[in-house]
């Protein structure tokens, strides 16, 4: 079973990762000057990145256990602990969060002119919240980070967003909140049923009754499905993406929507395996529906950002398809595809942001034929487009391939529909690229378009490197996650083969509780 291996680095690595941005945010309260605020935020985000070096190099990928563990009693009366640790499932997300936050701060350098200090504070708090979500191993702590994160994201969209930002911000907030609060009740029910603990590792070993599992899974599903977002809970995403500032979109697409799928892997599957199996057919159908529907909608979009938003719905359909195939290819593919999607969609939103800052339009029709004017930009966009399509040699290919393998083992028909989704994806992305970069220049405003500057290249470069690195040497990522995903699948299968408690016993347990 999973263990929490205490941190042996001599310094609390994960706590530093969580609280360094908080410290940065508090420090920024004292900074008046916009320039100083930008530099302070950048330095803190770079320090976070630096902390990711020991995180990745000292991480032992050969064992499935939770590493760099820390555990301190927090609220004794309720048996709540500040308990954190990372395994192969979460460690890469922590690193990705640190990377994308840095990228976001760099792309916001000139595009955010209004209330710079507040913007940077929100970014840093958001980073802390996201890392906290991935590191938390106590359900209460997890929930605190999960909800607290809404505040900076809401403000990012609402204050620095586009014209229709108010609507988008509140829609984002309410959708996610409604899903989350249902999970909160389920967390409480889990706590009492399991005899008064929020400890995730301990809960994983608890055998919940079948009826209880179905309900609890449904409540957790409400929170995670909205976040992913799965069809039909996805309608907040296009609005939020379109209105959010570039940095907000990058974080939203890169990290936030991954948390839903992460939640499935970390909580739903190991805690409620019976329910997960029972729910699988539904989720598989919803997943392929999202794949096709997202792609179909992407074709119809005239707005650059909205197109990418719908492509995210489609891509996240692949992720859930892989996870719920519940075999090693599927789960590993799904997990890798989350990272991939974070990189490539993050980069796509970066690309939109770069050009939007110059032209102030997101309409695809306003572009065309800009490849000759801005060759560096066009090359960058090309690489990212191909990664998003899943061209062999890029990261997207590996992930989608593994997912389809997994889905095929589950049921061939899902793999077939998934493949159609890939073809559609190639269609709308290439068509997008064609309309933006090639053809004749119809819009005279684009005559004097400036190419990407050094700062923008510096922000984009790490993402491009990762596209090829994972694409050509996927083992770098697989070796980190392999032990943990294998263990997860073994755990689910072992628990579903053992008989679940009879329904009556668990219902009584929920009531009598602690």
């Amino acid at each position, binding site marked *: 079973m999973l263990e929490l291996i205490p941190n042996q680095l001599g310094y609390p690595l994960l706590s530093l990762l969580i609280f360094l941005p908080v410290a940065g945010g508090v420090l920024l309260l004292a900074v008046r000057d916009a320039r100083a605020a930008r530099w302070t935020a950048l330095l803190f985000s770079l320090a976070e990145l630096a902390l990711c070096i020991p995180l990745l190099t000292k991480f032992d990928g050969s064992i499935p256990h939770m590493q760099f563990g820390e555990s301190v009693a*927090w*609220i*004794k*009366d*309720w048996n709540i602990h500040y308990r954190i640790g990372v395994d192969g499932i979460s460690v890469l997300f922590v690193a990705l969060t640190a990377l994308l936050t840095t990228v976001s701060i760099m792309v916001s350098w000139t595009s955010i002119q209004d*209330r710079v200090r*507040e913007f940077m504070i929100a970014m840093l708090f958001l980073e802390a919240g996201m890392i906290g979500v991935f590191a938390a191993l106590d359900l209460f702590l997890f*929930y*605190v980070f999960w*909800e*607290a994160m*809404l*505040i900076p994201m*809401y*403000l990012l969209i*609402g*204050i620095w967003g586009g014209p229709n*930002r*108010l609507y988008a*911000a*509140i829609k984002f*907030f*309410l959708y996610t*909140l*409604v899903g989350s*609060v*249902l999970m*909160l*009740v389920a967390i*409480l*029910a889990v*706590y*009492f049923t399991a005899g008064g603990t929020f400890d995730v590792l301990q809960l994983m070993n608890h055998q919940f009754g079948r009826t209880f599992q179905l309900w609890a899974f449904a409540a957790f599903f409400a929170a995670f499905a909205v976040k992913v977002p799965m069809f039909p809970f996805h309608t907040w995403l296009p609005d939020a993406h379109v209105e959010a500032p570039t940095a907000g979109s990058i974080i939203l697409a890169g990290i936030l929507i991954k948390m839903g799928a992460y939640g499935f892997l970390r909580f739903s599957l190991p805690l409620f395996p019976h329910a997960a199996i029972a729910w699988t057919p539904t989720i598989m159908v919803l997943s392929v529906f999202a794949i096709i529907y997202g792609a179909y909608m992407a074709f119809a979009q005239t707005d650059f950002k909205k197109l990418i938003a719908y492509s995210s719905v489609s891509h996240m359909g692949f992720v859930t398809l892989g996870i719920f195939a519940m075999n090693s290819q599927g789960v590993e593919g799904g997990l890798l595809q989350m990272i991939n999607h974070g990189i490539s969609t993050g980069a796509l939103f970066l690309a939109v942001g770069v050009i939007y800052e110059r032209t102030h339009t997101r309409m695809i029709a306003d572009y065309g034929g800009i490849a000759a004017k801005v060759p560096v930009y066009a090359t960058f966009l090309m690489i990212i487009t191909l990664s998003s399509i899943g061209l062999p040699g890029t990261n997207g290919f590996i992930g989608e391939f593994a997912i389809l393998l997994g889905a095929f083992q589950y049921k061939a028909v899902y793999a077939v529909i998934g493949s159609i989704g890939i073809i559609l994806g190639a269609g709308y992305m290439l068509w997008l690229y064609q309309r933006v970069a090639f053809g004749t220049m119809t819009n005279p405003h684009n005559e004097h378009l400036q190419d990407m500057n050094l700062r923008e290249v510096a922000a984009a470069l790490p993402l491009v490197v990762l596209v090829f690195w994972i694409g050509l040497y996927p083992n770098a990522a697989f070796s980190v996650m392999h032990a943990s995903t294998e263990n997860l699948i073994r755990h689910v299968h072992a628990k579903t083969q053992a008989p679940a408690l009879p329904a009556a016993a668990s219902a009584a347990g*929920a*009531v009598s*509780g*602690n």
Partner: protein
Amino acid sequence: MPQTLTAFIGQLDPIAPEFLIIGVALAILVIDLFTDRKYKAVLGWIGLAGVICSAVLTVQLMQEGAHGAFFGNTFLLDPFANYFKLVFYVSCGLGILVSLKYLEIEDIHRGEYYALMLFATSGMMLMASAGDLISLYLGLELMALSIYVLAGFMRRDSRSNEAGIKYLLLGSFSSGIMLYGMSLLYGLAGTTNLNGILAFLKGADLGNPVLFLAMIMLMVSFGFKVAAVPFHMWVPDVYEGAPTSVTAFMSAGPKVAGFAVLLRVFIHALGPLHADASTVFALLALLTMAVGNIMAITQTNIKRMLAYSSIAHAGYALVGLAAGGPDGAASVMLYVLIYAVMNMGAFGVVIMLRKAGVRGEEISDFAGLGKTNKTAAFLMLIFLFSLTGIPPMAGFIGKFYIFKSAVQAGLVWLAVAGVLFSAVSAYFYLRVIMQMYMYEPKEEFSLVRSPALALALAISVTAVIIIGVYPTGVLEFARASVMGLL
């Protein structure tokens, strides 16, 4: 004779905090006569000093472990009562701090104001300590009468007059119902003593319809005080019309006191009836959360919105009452403390917007506050997210404990309703945040600045964040204090 007098005074120890508060109130009335209009604030500070000294006395009593029933079992000194007294000191202290400048602006700076506030506080303290229906009623009326006057304190303002008279009429009506319920209970049990009633109920036929009627009548009248739906009709008008500083105090103090007696009577004295009471409380809670949260959405006046929000919060606390048991009671106690602090904070910011000539009561008056006054807007942001119940603010801890006890008591459906309504509440709280941060300021106007108000806000915001991040201390305190009750 002197010996008897000393002996008598010696007996007064347990009630010393109440005496001190009343003494200071009387002193304020006298000093008021010799105080120039310009220096009325001194009276407020005297009142505050009185509250602090009284708090010290209460803490001393707690440390001595003084515990027991006094004055013919009409006055109980136990951890439960002391907990609530500390909450009242906090509400009254913050209430005085937010009043000082406001009264000046409204030109109603008179000594009686502070005296009435202290009288109301002493009434609440008596309510928390009541061991008998009679002393409970005395405390409640002492509190209510003072607040009626405070609500109508702006003599020249018709809204304030309306508030005062409306509260008085409806309040008297609810007192009548309460007395009716009490007399029925007395008729059955033959005693007005709470312990006596408990002893009677342990051997009585609980299916007696008269008993049920008495219980419902007490619920109605206490429900009126805590603004539970459907006894909430007075709240929006009174909250809107009363001077804002009084509204702030009213939304914290009397409501908390109402919950103190609800707990004392329904968890302790009528404990054997809790199975029935629980169902009624659960329905009341559901209604209260629904009406409070839904009605708040349509409000354009911030005081009315906060009035409906305070109704909704009473609904959450009622969930804890429906849950019952030590954890249910402790969750209500923790909740009202957190609620009092965060709500006082929110009202403090509303008061900052009040300038001569500008009422500052419309939600649209908050437009652009995030630009014109960053600190005030940021504080309001924290209070509003706390009221919504988003971590890491104290409001989350309060709601978490409430819903935790509900799930523990098997009221999962009520917990689900509660969390969904608290998601609804996000909508109207966020509207204020939107105005502050996402709209441009309409006109330049500087806020009220006063050190007392700043102090009140600093205290509230510190408490909201500390309780939110590290609730262990207050949580243990609330859980330990419930022992006096059960």
